């Protein structure tokens, strides 16, 4: 006997989509394994094992001689300087573009209806600014900082400035994109109230938008600075100054014990930056 109450409980339906997704994942995994030449067995190959062992054993003991360490002070500072300058310029690029690329600021939402409606010229102007900002931001961040560094080394020569520029442009793109998302999440009701006092868009931004999102803004920017410290080490590999350049030189000379020291310095620096930004975030 079927109980009438039981038959009334609706079945939770599995959509076709979840099966499709599982299948897609399986295909991607198998295909990726084959084509990306994933092969854990290489670690057991005699020759590779020897190379690996040479590399690792060559790292020990790390070079802690005062000669070497004192030589590395400058590159380490340079890495920090590259990351700081790069991030500051990235903010200068990402902040204005991020504002223009915010939908609720430029074209949509309650703040724009009265101003745009009935004025095709304004509408066109706002839409072009919005799409231009969005377009620039995606161009900047779709090219990795490594490739930007490569280009800037050709353009302005070897040295830390190309590293600064690479970080500034690539991170400007990332910051701007995330800033616009942060701005879009702001509560629009206070903004509406500010606008209704006769405030201009810029004033609404200064009084309503920015104060609302300040904690997120600062914490994401600090996180990007942290990434910039790491990135400026990698950028050195293509000749853009800093610790990375030293790592590259030591690698090429097979001085693996120096490489370990440099990695240690990098680790300490990143940990310190992490600590500082955590402290600042806690203050907000």
């Amino acid at each position, binding site marked *: 006997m079927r109980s009438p109450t039981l038959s009334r409980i609706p079945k939770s339906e599995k959509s076709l989509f979840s099966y499709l997704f599982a299948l897609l994942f399986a295909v991607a995994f198998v295909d990726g394994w084959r084509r990306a030449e994933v092969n854990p067995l290489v670690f057991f190959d005699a020759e590779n094992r020897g190379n690996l062992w040479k590399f690792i054993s060559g790292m020990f003991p790390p070079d802690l001689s005062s000669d070497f360490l004192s030589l590395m002070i400058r590159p380490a500072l340079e890495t920090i300087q590259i990351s700081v300058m790069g991030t500051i310029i990235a903010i200068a690029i990402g902040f204005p573009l991020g504002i223009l690329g915010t939908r609720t600021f430029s074209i*949509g*939402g*309650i703040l724009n*209806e*009265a*101003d745009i*409606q*009935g*004025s095709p010229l*304004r509408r066109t102007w706002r839409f072009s600014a919005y799409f231009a900002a969005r377009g620039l931001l995606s161009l900047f961040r779709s090219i990795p900082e490594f490739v930007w560094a490569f280009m800037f080394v050709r353009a302005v020569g070897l040295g830390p400035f190309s590293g600064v520029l690479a970080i500034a442009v690539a991170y400007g793109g990332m910051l701007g994109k995330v800033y616009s998302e942060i701005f879009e999440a702001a509560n*629009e*009701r*206070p903004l*509406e*109230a*500010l*606008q*209704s*006092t*006769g*405030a*201009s868009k*810029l*004033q*609404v931004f*200064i*009084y*309503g938008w920015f*104060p*609302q999102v*300040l904690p997120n803004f600062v914490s994401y920017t600090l996180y990007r600075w942290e990434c910039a410290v790491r990135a400026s080490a990698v950028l050195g590999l293509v000749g853009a100054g800093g610790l990375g350049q030293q790592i590259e030189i030591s690698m090429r000379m097979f001085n693996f014990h120096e490489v370990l020291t440099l990695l240690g310095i990098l680790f300490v620096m990143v940990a310190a930056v992490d600590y500082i930004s955590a402290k600042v975030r806690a203050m907000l």
Partner: protein
Amino acid sequence: MRERVAMAYQYRLEKVGKVFGRRQIALARIDFVVQRGEKVALIGPSGAGKTSLFRILNCTLRPSSGKLWINGDEIESLHGRRLREVRRKIGTIYQQHNLVPRLKVIHNVLSGRLGRWSAFRSLASLMRPLEVELAWSALKQVGIEEKIFTRTDELSGGQQQRVAIARVLVQDPEVILADEPVSSVDPSLAASIVNLLIDIGRDTHKTLLMNLHSVDLALAYFPRVIGIKNGVALFDLSPDKIDDRLLEDLYSGHLPPSDQEKVAHAESNALAYP
């Protein structure tokens, strides 16, 4: 001659309608005239379109149809600086205060000055408040001057509503629009806040329009009451002519609840209007 007649009006609405999206009708057709210095209460069921109407009256939304004159200006032709100029003369008090929670009280109060300040001055005031005395006297008028340097989100709902009133005082507009100013405060405070707004309006000869949830407050304090339902004005009378039958009509559920929800939804969604 015609110009002078027009100038005596604060507001003139002719067949004003508002549609969100394609078919969500918030306002069907509203006609009325408000003289300068007049005190008017608007009542009606939630979802009747009162909030949308206020958003049109303070130039946040534009009517989808019909015409609106403010002080003799037809607002359809206004954009940019001239639109801001009109907005500056209209102060709005919102149901949910709409203050910036992370700013100190003084900055929320002084934001009433933004229409008169340059962007640079506004920024400078955030660093070091300008016109502190003005903010102080406004806060004193609403009775919470001791909170001037408190962060706004540390205040109670009633105190925040007073900050919002102080912001309008500092803005010193010609018109005060108060959209359900007392529905989120203690009932015992409601009458005192309505009273305060009426006093302010009378002392400074401002036009006052107030959306009210409470019929009693509307009938007790206002010489003119407009009843709004389904986006049209059902009546527009002095309180002694409003009887129980009219009020019953106003609040009786002519609309099926689903439709009423739709309209209310459209109103709250106006924020996300594309």
